[in-house]
């Protein structure tokens, strides 16, 4: 079931996240430049001072980031304040060691104590900034959840499905039972807290339940090809990322056509990335329906909240097919 990864309490930043790394790099360099600006009276000397400081600052920064990147899984298990102390400890140790190693006759960085004090200050400032940022994002997450709910339950789907189940009650009561069970499962997930990651296996199960209901309604008009052999079942992803895309594919690619339509669901792992691709027939005359774009924007937004810059959603039409691709980092669930 869903993995606890609560965004509402403070958590250490993910040091493997591109966004976090970029913010740390920018923050430290901006701080260095600003301090050079304060002490030097002209631009050229400011630049000179900055370059001089960079000789020491950049190695400290980069090595610290590499160490944090490596230690990230371990750090993530610590409680927030213990984790912060550990991060500060690592940064101080790296900086202290480099200070001693680099300090030579031609480079006089000043006293070790001053360096360590500055590093501690910068680390504290950055951690506070990242914490504020995470907190600023949590209302956005709550809102995203709401938006997600609104955008993905297509009332059209609900009422037509209920109607289809009603038509089965007398003719095939067992199938009607199964269909209602599928609907119940689907809505349980729809109404769940969407702020936590889910396992890909669960998302795939959801896709299959959804497909079973659509199959009931559309019969032989809907053909779904599942290409899941290389799907990493233990990968974590935000909930309800793939189902709305499949729903769009069925709605625009199959329901809009008078003949049978083939939908392809392809999920595979490529190294450290998970790629999901959903394809459906493309009808140009229906392309102007706006619902599609809205669902995609919503998913893109949520991917960004969960993975920052590391996930991607792209859609294109080629040769009468409409293709949506989602690419995200592979994060296996801890067993």
């Amino acid at each position, binding site marked *: 079931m869903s993995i606890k990864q609560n965004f509402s309490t403070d958590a250490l930043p993910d040091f493997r996240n591109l966004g976090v790394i970029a913010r740390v790099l920018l923050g430290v360099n901006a701080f260095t430049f600003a301090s050079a600006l304060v002490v030097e009276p002209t631009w050229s000397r400011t630049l000179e001072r900055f370059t001089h400081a960079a000789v020491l600052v950049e190695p400290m920064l980069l090595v610290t980031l590499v160490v944090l990147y490596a230690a990230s899984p371990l750090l993530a298990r610590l409680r927030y304040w213990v984790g912060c102390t550990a991060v500060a400890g690592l940064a101080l140790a790296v900086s202290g060691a480099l200070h001693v190693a680099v300090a030579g006759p031609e480079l006089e960085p000043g006293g070790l104590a001053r360096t360590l004090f500055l590093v501690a200050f910068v680390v504290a400032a950055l951690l506070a900034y990242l914490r504020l940022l995470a907190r600023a994002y949590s209302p956005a997450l709550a809102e995203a959840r709401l938006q997600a709910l609104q955008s993905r339950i297509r009332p059209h789907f609900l009422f037509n499905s209920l109607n289809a189940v*009603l038509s089965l009650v007398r*003719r095939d009561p067992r199938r009607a039972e199964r269909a209602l069970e599928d609907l119940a499962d689907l809505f349980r997930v729809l109404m769940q807290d969407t702020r936590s990651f889910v396992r890909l296996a669960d998302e795939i199960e959801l896709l299959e339940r959804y497909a079973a209901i659509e199959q009931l309604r559309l019969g032989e008009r809907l053909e779904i090809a599942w290409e899941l052999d290389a799907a990493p079942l233990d990968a974590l992803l935000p909930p309800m990322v793939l189902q709305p895309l499949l729903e769009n594919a069925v709605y625009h690619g199959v329901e809009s056509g008078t003949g049978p339509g083939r939908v392809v669901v392809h999920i595979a792992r490529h190294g450290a990335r998970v790629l999901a691709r959903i394809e459906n027939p493309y009808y140009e005359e229906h392309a102007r329906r706006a619902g599609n774009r809205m669902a995609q924007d919503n998913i893109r937004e949520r991917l960004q909240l969960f993975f920052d810059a590391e996930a991607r959603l792209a859609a294109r039409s080629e040769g009468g097919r409409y293709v949506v691709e989602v690419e995200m980092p592979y994060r296996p669930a801890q067993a």
Partner: protein
Amino acid sequence: MSPLRVFIADDEAPARERLKELLSDIAAELPTALAGEAQNGIEALERLPASGAQVLLLDIQMPGMGGLEVARHLAGLEAGPAVVFVTAHDRHAVEAFELNALDYLMKPVRATRLADALRKAAAGGAPQPQRLAQAAKGPREYLSVVERNRIVLVPVREIVYLRAELKYVTLRTRSGEHLLEEPLVALEAEFAEHFVRVHRNCLVARAAVRGVERAADGGEEPHWNVVLDGIAERLPVSRRQWAAVRALVKDQA
């Protein structure tokens, strides 16, 4: 009393099954006979005229052609059926039905509601074309002509020009001609995006305009003609429309 002849048009097989079940449930108080079924709008237009249907249960969201457009083409039939629209959820359509006093049912349909709607529709007769036109969101994708109790559909994008002549409007495609009974002014308003007026009595598909040429002098005032894609016929441009036509030709160049 002979049973009411009902035709069902819905793209989902289970939805049609459900309506048939309900019709048999209410048979004691309202006897009905199934006049026919269709699983999309085009099929409904093909099958309905010969079916003798008195009431059409018409799903509004169907592939190919939606229910509202189907109803508009049926309005050309001499003894068209009464129409009850059926929708799962379409807030805009429901508002439009209310506003224009058109009969509709919500899916899942209840037996009692179905009986009421059928009775009311059968008594009220075929819907008025103006009400259907007002309820429709956008322009039709087809124009239709009734020829010997058959509805002939012409896709709007295949039309080269529409020209008013006395009582009728001639509709010209690359392959043929039809006569419409709709006023040119209404067509111009509905399909403003597709057509440009070149003359008081003539609308030409923007996409079919290839250029303009000087008319050969035949004693009359010199004027310009529109050169069309796919047909040899030339159409005169009136002085009043010349600016609009020239702008279009320039845009395309």
